[in-house]
């Protein structure tokens, strides 16, 4: 009772930063948006290095993708989007200001409002905006003990969409579920490959029992969100929040938050309009174009999966929480439409279980829908038992090997008429005399059955084999 009461007193708001990883270029220059696995400071130009005299030019494709996110979250799109400068000195910020957006002082971000629906909760979105990512600071180990800081500008200027929630979340778990839902939406929109390191990051604002708000920065993964928030809530409950505004840094190496700064007042970023970029008019036509191109989103897909395949809500929920899982499910059903429910259950329990055990993302699953479908089909037809089927699947999940052969070897009985027919063909061709005998001699029929059984490694179903041979003999005889 007390614990629940306390959790009601926790208020969490998230600022999620999502890289638009599928863009070709950065937000304001023509450097590649793909900065991964490149020699440090090679994916740069005068603009993203903030060299004196360089000027930003807006990547309009980024506007479209950010609009898609805003529309998917049901936000209200501004008629005019104005970029603002957020001024602060930091070594990762080449201009010592960030080109961002703002919702005060006459500012107009891309969109305001919107929401994400969780199972038992609606989380309101405050604003959605487009901004440039700073460079990356590399510490040796932990921030507190690193003897130096290196700066890699390859990431500098990559397009980010910032999604700011209202402080509607009350538990670390809810925060994780929120992020999972958001990730599924972004994946379905095809704007962010959330598996790339740093592609989805968040800062969290936490206050406990109406105390001072503490901001935790540098949360790099979903698991860390829950960990960082739990740590911070416990810390605040035990020690209380410092007076004023504290900013803390999530040190994922040590698993703790450390204080970066405490300010009496809110940090003054001296926001003002970025005169190098004229206000961007978001036309009705553009909104309609983006709206029309929106794909099916997780909520709609969940409903459809329930309707189309009779899946229970919870199963459909889990499937649609990862685009890769839902895609895998539907691709498999296409291969073998015989038992969608069984497929869904196996994916949700066994395959997902496997992925979680090894901390793998569904998109990295090696098992192919074709093989998964073949196994489920073999089980449904009694060719192999469930245990064998699941064993095969888990093996292929790791190796990606083709399962057709293996199903055959693992099968206890072959009940597939087409497969048995192939053996019968072979036996008939190689034993012409015995076939002739069998037309008149029942014993010779048994001999033929024996040969087919032998060729199939003893797995052909004897009854089915017999009836195939008899009907074949009838044809030969007539």
């Amino acid at each position: 009772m007390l614990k629940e009461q306390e959790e009601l007193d926790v208020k969490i708001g998230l600022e999620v930063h999502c890289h638009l990883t599928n863009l070709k270029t950065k937000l304001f220059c023509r450097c590649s948006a793909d900065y991964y696995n490149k020699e440090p400071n090679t994916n740069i130009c005068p603009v993203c290095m903030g060299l004196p005299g360089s000027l930003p030019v807006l990547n309009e494709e980024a506007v479209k993708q950010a609009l898609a996110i805003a529309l998917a979250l049901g936000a209200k799109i501004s008629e005019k989007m104005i970029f603002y400068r957020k001024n602060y000195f930091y070594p990762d910020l080449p201009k010592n200001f960030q080109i961002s957006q703002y919702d005060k002082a006459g500012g107009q971000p891309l969109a305001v409002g919107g929401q994400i629906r969780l199972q038992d909760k609606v989380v309101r979105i405050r604003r959605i905006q487009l901004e440039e990512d700073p460079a990356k600071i590399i510490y040796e180990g932990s921030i507190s003990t690193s003897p130096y800081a290196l700066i890699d500008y390859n990431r500098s200027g990559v397009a980010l969409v910032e999604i700011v929630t209202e402080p509607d979340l009350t538990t670390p778990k809810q925060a994780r579920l929120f992020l999972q839902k958001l990730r599924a939406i972004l994946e379905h929109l095809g704007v962010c490959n959330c598996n790339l390191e740093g592609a989805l990051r968040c800062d969290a604002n936490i206050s406990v029992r109406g105390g001072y708000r503490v901001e935790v920065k540098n949360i790099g993964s979903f698991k860390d969100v829950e960990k960082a928030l739990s740590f911070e809530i416990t810390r605040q409950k035990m020690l209380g929040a410092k007076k004023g505004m504290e900013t803390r840094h999530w040190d994922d190496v040590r698993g703790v938050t450390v204080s970066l700064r405490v300010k009496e007042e809110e940090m003054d970023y001296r926001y003002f309009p970025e005169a190098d970029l004229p206000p961007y008019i978001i036309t009705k036509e553009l909104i309609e174009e983006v709206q029309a191109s929106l794909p099916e989103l997780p909520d709609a897909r969940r409903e459809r999966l329930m309707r189309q395949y009779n899946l229970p809500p919870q199963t459909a929920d889990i499937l649609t929480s990862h685009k890769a899982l839902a895609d895998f499910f539907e691709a498999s059903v296409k291969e073998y439409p015989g038992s969608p429910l069984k497929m869904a259950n196996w994916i949700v329990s066994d395959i997902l279980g496997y992925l979680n055990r090894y901390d793998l993302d569904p998109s990295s699953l090696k098992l192919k829908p074709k093989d998964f479908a073949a196994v489920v089909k073999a089980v449904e037809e009694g060719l192999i038992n469930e245990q064998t089927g699941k064993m095969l699947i888990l093996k292929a999940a790791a190796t990606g090997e083709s399962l057709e052969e293996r199903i055959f070897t693992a099968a206890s009985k072959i009940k597939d008429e087409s497969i048995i027919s192939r053996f019968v063909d072979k036996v008939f061709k190689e034993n012409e005399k015995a076939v002739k005998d069998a037309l008149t001699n029942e014993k010779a029929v048994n001999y033929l059955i024996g040969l087919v059984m032998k060729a199939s490694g003893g797995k052909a179903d004897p009854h089915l084999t017999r009836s195939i041979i008899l009907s074949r003999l009838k044809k030969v005889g007539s």
Partner: protein
Amino acid sequence: MSSLAKIDLKNARRLTEMVKAGELSAVEAVEASLSRIRELDDKINAFITICPEQALTAAEELDLRLKKGEQVGSLCGVPVAVKDVISTAGIETTCGSKMLKGYIPPYDATVVAKLKEAGAIIVGKTNTDEFAMGSTTEFSAFGPTKNPCDLSRVAGGSSGGSGAAVAAGMVPLALGSDTGGSVRCPAAFCGVVGLKPTYGAVSRYGLISYANSLEQIGPLASNVDDCALLYRCISGWDPMDSTSYRDQPKEAAPLREGAKIAVPKEFFGEGVEEAVSKCVWRGLDALRDSGFVIEEVSLRSLNYALPAYYIVAMAEASSNLARFDGIRYGLHLKSGFRDWNTYFSRCRAEGFGPEVKRRILLGTFILSAGYYGVYYLKAQKIRSIIKSEFQQILSQYDLIAGPTMPTTPFKIGERVEDPLLMYLIDVNTVPPNLTGHPAISVPVHREGELPVGLQLIAPYFCEERLFQAAKIVEEGLRR
């Protein structure tokens, strides 16, 4: 040497025609310019950097191309000086500041690329008030530029180096930048022609920003035709500058007889010297003699232009100059610093001069929470009021005219200790920066008088109209 001295470096058109005709090689033109610079610049200090090697190499290449009969551009073989706030690949670009000493840009500003494309040859980088913040070029970390007509007087600023280089005949053409009058002021003080183009007419890509919503790169020349020649070369849309204007009108309708010129009486307000008024009216009379109608009007918002300008400029400057932190280029302090705040603060304390610090501090204050609305937003409101008043006048008149500067060039050191007195001399030049209108300064003094400039302001993208009227003034004065 004696033959070099005969080359007229005050007429770019004739020079380029001679080079094209083979009467003069580009190398000879460049050598004439370099020798004139060597001869005079110890006294004048118009240049921060001279680049004879690059210039002569470029001239040799050009001569080779001419020999082969290749197509050459409109500024073929013309030595040009570029204000040191404009990025030049491979040539040190200091902004007149210790902060950028040693900074060699890896890229050319769009205007510089256009100059090269047109066959112009950059001979050096000219002196400027630090980061273009000043009206006399006294705030340069490399010493003040002296006025060629009287070495004890200021050359104006902030493009004082460019104005003096042209006035002294070191180069026929120079580029300046104009944020609040920084091309027109040295043009007026040095007795040359200087244009601040329509905001968006010339690419700012590569111009190291002081106040990015106000400034334009502009040409300076000894005569109106040369000024126009350089303007036509550097103007036009640039995809690298989002504020450059895509559909620039090709040619505005020329002024006809009976065209009306508005002369706001406020342009002749308190502080305008008698000598200035006299010369300016001489220029206006020349226009009247050519059939133009001169009418006095009132520009009531002018009083608010100066404070609005300084608030906007300082606010933008405080942000634009934030990038100079001693990490990536320019000033670098040897290590021993454990802490980022201490490091960049020390760099900025050592790298920036007093006027730059003053404007950064004021600009930071202006943008701070609680003051933003009182200062910045209010200044922007005034800006739009001034803009609509200008547009209203320019809907009834073809041009607006008045003195460029309220004074003739004063003595070096005379105003440098009093920032407010210094800021006051920009009173007539700042309005076109706030409104974005094009404005030209054309000399209206006579031999023996201290230089005075007449400022003409036109509707957006009517630069050709300015050249036309300025040329009438120029010719009228010769009579």
